[in-house]
């Protein structure tokens, strides 16, 4: 029996392919195979002999079967291996190209600003960009003769002959959204209003269209100190600098009183702007307490309510934060610029995941 075992185990080990292996199986453990034939002989044996030969034959059969299975698996493996070898590809070849889109810095920064103010309870309000002169000027305490009107480089829409209404304007600021929101919602109110604004000016630092975000908070007890805190919180979160320091400077806007220009501490060392350090101050926005006349235009009783408003340039803070040098390039759609300064499609700013990456 040992002879049988050695013969088959050796033959199995040397089988070259599955066909040879199958022939061996038939020859050894097939119905008429050598081992099977031996097993048939068990019936002719004495019980004592059977006691010994039975288990031995069974063990032999098992051994040959598992040798067959092992060899079969080994043959399959080496076959697969060879196939895989033959399937070699140069994976350093470029992949099929996929276009990679981008988000414009204006959109990204608008979302950043929105995320921060939303956390402080400010909703987002909108208004038309072709605006009537009441909303853009009169309601904001800028009457027809006010020098501020002339200084705003206003774009006017043309009027059809016979239409004697004052011409509509392209809104010169996002402030008319204050009026529309107050008239719509009343007080208390907290909104920001980002969007396009227009002034007839074009040079190195001015484009005829740019973006502002207006802020408005009206309640019973909101003070200018609250305004300062809100702006400090905003700047800290937006510019992602801990030591942000703001300076309020008295100024004048027709729609606020008192009014303040707001400067942020910075340094220009080596031509690079750094916020929160240094001895320079950079003007970043205008703000103030909403003028009683503006509250009245918005249908809100100034004896009962008070609050603040501010306006800042989205393009401007985008330039400051991301080191973008030229305002005009924002609107030029140069593919190289869009790719360099743009943001990934899924880089959505949020308070919980971070305002910027």
């Amino acid at each position: 029996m040992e002879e049988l075992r050695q013969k088959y185990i050796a033959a199995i080990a040397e089988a070259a392919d599955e066909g040879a292996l199958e022939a061996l199986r038939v020859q050894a453990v097939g119905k008429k195979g050598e081992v099977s034939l031996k097993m048939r002989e068990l019936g002719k044996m004495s019980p004592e002999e059977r006691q010994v030969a039975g288990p031995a034959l069974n063990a032999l059969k098992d051994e040959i079967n598992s040798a067959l299975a092992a060899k079969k698996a080994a043959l399959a493996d080496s076959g697969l291996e060879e196939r895989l070898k033959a399937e070699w590809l140069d994976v350093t070849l470029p992949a099929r190209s996929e276009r990679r889109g981008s988000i414009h810095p204006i959109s990204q920064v608008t979302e950043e600003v929105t995320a921060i103010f939303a956390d402080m309870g400010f909703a987002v309000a909108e208004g038309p960009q072709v605006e009537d002169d009441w909303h853009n000027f009169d309601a904001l305490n800028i009457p027809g003769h006010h020098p501020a009107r002339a200084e705003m480089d206003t774009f006017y829409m043309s009027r059809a002959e016979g239409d004697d209404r004052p011409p509509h304007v392209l809104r010169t600021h996002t402030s008319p959204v204050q009026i529309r929101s107050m008239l719509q919602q009343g007080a208390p109110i907290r909104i920001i209003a980002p969007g396009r604004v227009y002034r007839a000016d074009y040079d190195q630092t001015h484009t005829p269209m740019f973006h502002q975000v207006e802020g408005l908070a009206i309640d019973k007890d909101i003070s200018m100190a609250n305004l300062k805190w809100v702006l400090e919180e905003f700047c800290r979160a937006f510019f992602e600098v801990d030591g942000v320091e703001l300076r309020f400077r008295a100024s004048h806007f027709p729609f606020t009183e008192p009014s303040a220009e707001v400067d942020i501490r910075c340094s220009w060392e080596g031509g690079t702007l750094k916020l929160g350090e240094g001895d320079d101050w950079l003007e970043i926005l205008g703000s103030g307490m909403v003028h009683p006349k503006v509250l009245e235009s918005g249908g809100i009783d100034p004896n009962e309510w008070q609050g603040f408003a501010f306006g800042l340039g989205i393009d401007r803070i985008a330039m400051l934060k991301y080191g973008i040098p030229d305002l005009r390039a924002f609107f030029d759609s140069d593919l190289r610029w869009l790719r360099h300064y743009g943001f990934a499609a899924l880089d959505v700013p949020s308070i919980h995941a971070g305002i910027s990456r």
Partner: protein
Amino acid sequence: MKFTLSWLKHHLETEATLDEILYALTDLGLEVEGVENPVDRLSEFTIGKVTHAEKHPDADKLKVCKVETDEGELQIICGAPNAREGITVVVAKPGVYVPGIDTTIGVGKIRGIESHGMMCSEREMEMSDAHDGIIELPSGEVGQRFTDWLSENQPERVDPVIEIAITPNRPDALGVEGVARDLAARGLGTLIPRETDPVPGSFPCPIGVSIDADTLDQAPVFYGRVIKGVKNGPSPKWLQDYLRAIGLRPISTLVDITNFFTYDRNRPLHVFDADKVKGNLRLHRAKGGETLVGLDEKEYTFEADMTLISDDEGVESIAGVMGGLPTGCTEETTNVFLEAAYFDPIRTAYTGRALKINSDARYRFERGIDPCWTPVGIEHATRMILDLCGGEASDVVIAGEIPDVDRAYKLDTARVESLVGMEIPAAEQRATLEALGFRLEGDMAHVPSWRPDVMGEADLVEEVARVASLTKLVGKPMRRASAGVPEAVLTPMQRREATARRTIATLGYNECVTYSFVDEASAGLFGGGTDATKLDNPISSEMSHMRPTPLPGLLQAASRNQARGYADLALFEVGPAFHGGEPDEQQQLACGVLVGHSGPKDVHGSRRAVDVFDAKADIEAVLAAIGAPAKVQIRRDVPEWLHPGRSGAICLGPKNVLGYFGELHPKVLDALDVKGPAVVFSVDLAATPFPKAKGTNRGALELADLQAVERDFAFVLDVGTEALTVVNAAAGADKTLIEEVRVFDEFHGEKAEAQMGAGKKSLAITVRLQPKDRTLKEADIEAVSKKIIEKVAKATGGVLRS
């Protein structure tokens, strides 16, 4: 507004340094825009004495000088004709920057002899144009700083010039005195009272003044007097220095005096040559059509109701804006009529704007001067004329009355804290207002006549806070609008816009922000360019009309990028479109443009030209992302800017177009100079209906356990038959059983027609049947198949392809 430090000190007694003054000005709201301090430029120059001078051996015009300086004796080569032994000079030693020649002095050899510095002329130091020779000082010690010597001996030459921006509410700060008053209130010194005694008239005024009754509201008061026997000529040096320092050209004493009061006290005045005035002067409204040549020698024609001053012969002055040339003062003037009046700001502003005259007078009258100072101002000016030009003053003639601007507001000292959030003691608040000229009676604050801007209690708060310094304001947390987790703030539309934007970027498009205005022709290509959307005052013809869609801007951007060598582009914009000129005629569109190919050539051969189905895939992705229903109609009635055969409108019902997609019309491509192929999509973001029910429950998922069956059908159809008709017909055969119908093949063209007949094509669909209650038997499938074939035949006339 410009003034010099010494001019300021004419009104302000102060020990404050220049820097302290500059800081305070900005902090008070009088923002410093620039300072020119000659000391900064000249601080390194020192005084020396020439102890020896001899001719340069190799140059006739050069001298070799020994100059004693604070660093000992230096040898300096000098070409100035006046360089000689014994004179006191200004020396630039090696290392000093000389502004007039834009050079830093070094040690060098001139014609073989070493020179260790430079002796300077005034021009080289940018002090004047004098360049006849080097400066010779009448005094001065060796080593003394030149600027120190100047401060002692010629202080006006190192007088810093300060320029501040004046906000429209602060006309009082358009006079140096007003600036000084603010600084004094801040505690930077004491305001120096500049009073003058009235000059009694010694004869009756030969020129009378009057104001027409209908003109009193635009010119309520008119003071005047004649000063006879004056000698006009160049004004004294101090006055010329003041005016030059702030950029004004001295003209003659009389004119310079009026300019002085304009800047010193925000009090524009006018001087007429009395001998050229015919009869009396009358303030009246223009009838319209009158003309006058102004002092700027231009002729102006007046519109009705402008305020004018006329004599018996006609118009002589544009009130509050500009005097007339015929009655202007000249060097020969001996008798002068001095005018001090008050003109209404609004009328003055309209007149100035209409005539396009920007004068110092207009600038001040339209912001508001102090009406109560009219009678005082005329006395000040008279006194100065008498002092500088001699002569004799007449009585003062007066027409009208000084407008009553007295008003008072309640000072609520608690308001500063509640509105601004600063704690300022009541006494300090009162002191501040008094220093600014307010008169306090109990808690009522009477506004000074030079502050037309103060119109209510909030203004009092502003004054107090401004003077106390807003820099001291400390931020105070603002409580949350509501306790707990903040609510979402975006409206469904705002959220939709953000979703659309990021979806399109995910599809590989680069977001652009293009101008809201485009040129008329480009707007016209897209159904715009109408008069209603036209700007009255565009900055260029390239930006003349509000855009009907962002597409022309995107295509222009594509064209610019193609010119830079980028041929394959995917650009998009989410932004406003204007279909009219009214505020409510604006809509938000999301537009994408694909130009060129899908990508660069690659080893996989995947590059192909973009086509209408790229645009369709992208618009479907956008619509799906913003929640549009899956079942929509596609119509062929598209705007003119699309290729009529290769484009579609995605609609819900007959009226609601959610968006367009397709190939651009070749004419549009041509007009915008874009090299095709180019396909676009445009989604009207508000058109897709917003979900009505607000709930988060998604409903249960119904999964069928039974095996689905797919069957393919190929139909022979007329070439013009649309796939969607076939799909809809097939799907309608059994709405419960048919889960999906997909088109998987289209066979058309010559070969197809050869097989199936002229004008025919074949379309193959897969129908997926999903049984819900029992396994399908072959007979069931046969029955449905038969119905499908019938439905398609009915809808299209098509037959099953054999």
